[in-house]
């Protein structure tokens, strides 16, 4: 697993992906930070964090799109699947590699905290709590995108489908209010709406239920990814 993780992370930095993702992430985070904190003179980062959701929806598929699709296209999956490493190790290594790049992006929020600290005492509890939330949110989206990537040989398809799925997840709370007349459907959608779970983090509430929700999504989609390869092997 360590080998796959290391290779995955270094492959992002050997190509342009890591730098582009980081540039876009930092660019938008900085823009939101300037607009909400500097121009309206507040020390609260919660607007920055809730606005970052939509940026993450676009960026996580870009991070995860190549994880398995490219392996399949280049036939390098043959090396992975005939090595003594188990499918679990392979999928987890891939996930952690992609997640590590995303986590590096999220370091920017601590920089923002430090900037606020220069003017007024920052609310570090909220910043740390929300960063955990945004890490979990991104982790769940990356797990979904890795699953999508395992289904196709094309990075482009993986990215587009990933963005579409991410966007549906982002809009989920809107669907809930649209469908409020159909009660069972709206409550079901409400239960899986990422926004609900993420929102609590941006208020500075670290609720175990929210953490468990995102960890479950990650575990579920990594499990699905393993199943994709098992099914392919047995077909």
């Amino acid at each position, binding site marked *: 697993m360590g080998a796959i993780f290391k290779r995955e992370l270094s492959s992002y930095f050997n190509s342009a992906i890591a730098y582009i993702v980081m540039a876009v992430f930092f660019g938008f985070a900085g823009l939101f930070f300037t607009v909400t904190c500097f121009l309206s003179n507040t020390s609260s980062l919660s607007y920055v964090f809730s606005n970052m959701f939509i940026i993450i929806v676009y960026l996580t598929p870009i991070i995860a799109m190549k994880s398995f699709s490219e392996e399949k296209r280049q036939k*390098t999956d043959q090396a992975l699947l005939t090595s003594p*490493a188990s499918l679990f190790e392979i999928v987890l290594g891939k996930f952690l590699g992609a997640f590590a790049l995303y986590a590096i992006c999220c370091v920017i929020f601590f920089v923002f905290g430090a900037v606020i600290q220069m003017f007024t005492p920052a609310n570090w509890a909220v910043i740390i709590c929300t960063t955990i939330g945004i890490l979990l949110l991104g982790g769940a989206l990356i797990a979904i995108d890795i699953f999508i990537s395992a289904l196709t040989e094309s990075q482009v398809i993986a990215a587009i489908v990933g963005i579409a799925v991410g966007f549906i997840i982002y809009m989920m709370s809107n669907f809930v209010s649209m469908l409020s007349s159909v009660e069972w459907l709206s409550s079901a959608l409400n239960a899986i709406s990422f926004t609900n779970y993420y929102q609590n983090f941006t208020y500075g509430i670290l609720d175990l239920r929210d953490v468990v929700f995102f960890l479950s999504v990650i575990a579920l989609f990594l499990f699905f990814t393993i199943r994709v390869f098992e099914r392919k092997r047995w077909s």
Partner: protein
Amino acid sequence: MVEVKNLTKRYGNVTVVDDISFTVDSGEILGFLGPNGAGKSTTMNMITGYISSSSGTVTVNGAEVLDNPKKVKGNIGYLPEIPPLYVDMTVRKYLEFMFDLKKVKLPKKEHISEVMRLVKISDVSERIIKHLSKGYRQRVGFAQALLGNPPILILDEPTVGLDPQQIIEMRSLIRNLGKKHTVIFSSHVLSEVSAICDRIIVISNGKIVADEKAENLSASISGEQKLRLDIEGSSSTVLDALKVIPGVIKIRKQHDIGNKTARYVVEYKNGIDVRRDVFKAIAGADCVILDMQNGNETLEDSFLKLVSQDQRKNIGGVK
């Protein structure tokens, strides 16, 4: 030791590998021969655990590949048809990654240098794989298979894309490796298989059509011996003179070469050497033998014969 028993792979209604069984002993070099699409790669993918079989088992050193994949995969070095290379890495980085992936427990730096020396890629160790030629890439893939000194090597068409010099080097390398490792290697080039292997399995349409020692393969298929002659003289005289020789089954005039010379093929019974009689008979008829070549069918002939026989049988079966 590799034991393959009743191995079958079906994709829907199409049977790609059909109930094949064979055993490879340690220290043996087995050649896997067949036309494109015969099921060679599929069989190898099943032995290495890349895909599962529809039925049948593969046992490697006592462990079944689907029950105990970790142990089996640790014992096998595999070079697939398309070498599984991460083209954005340097050769050394790639081999280091494969070393870690395979959980090899040898001194890392020394072992990788040794393998690179063995397949002669030390001079490109710091180059990015993307920029290497096909021959080098093939050898990097080969190096990857050798990492950890696995007792069993499975090589799927390892010489494809190499130049003649490299092919010769690769062959002698495989022969040397065969002294310490069990090697299964596939090819559709017959001369190559016969040059390297102790034993040859011919596979066609997913079935084994021959499983022989290399030197027996052609003898076992062709019933009679053949003599090829270039003779100067009128053809009726030649044919009359040859006809009466005991042991001769059939004489065929192949074509005229010109200058009153023609090429003949004489088929004669196994076990009787007719060369002396032919020489004397032709000399007695006042003709001249310009060229005489004895030998049973070449491997290429017998291979084609095997494969086409099998295909004819299959077509007959469909009807």
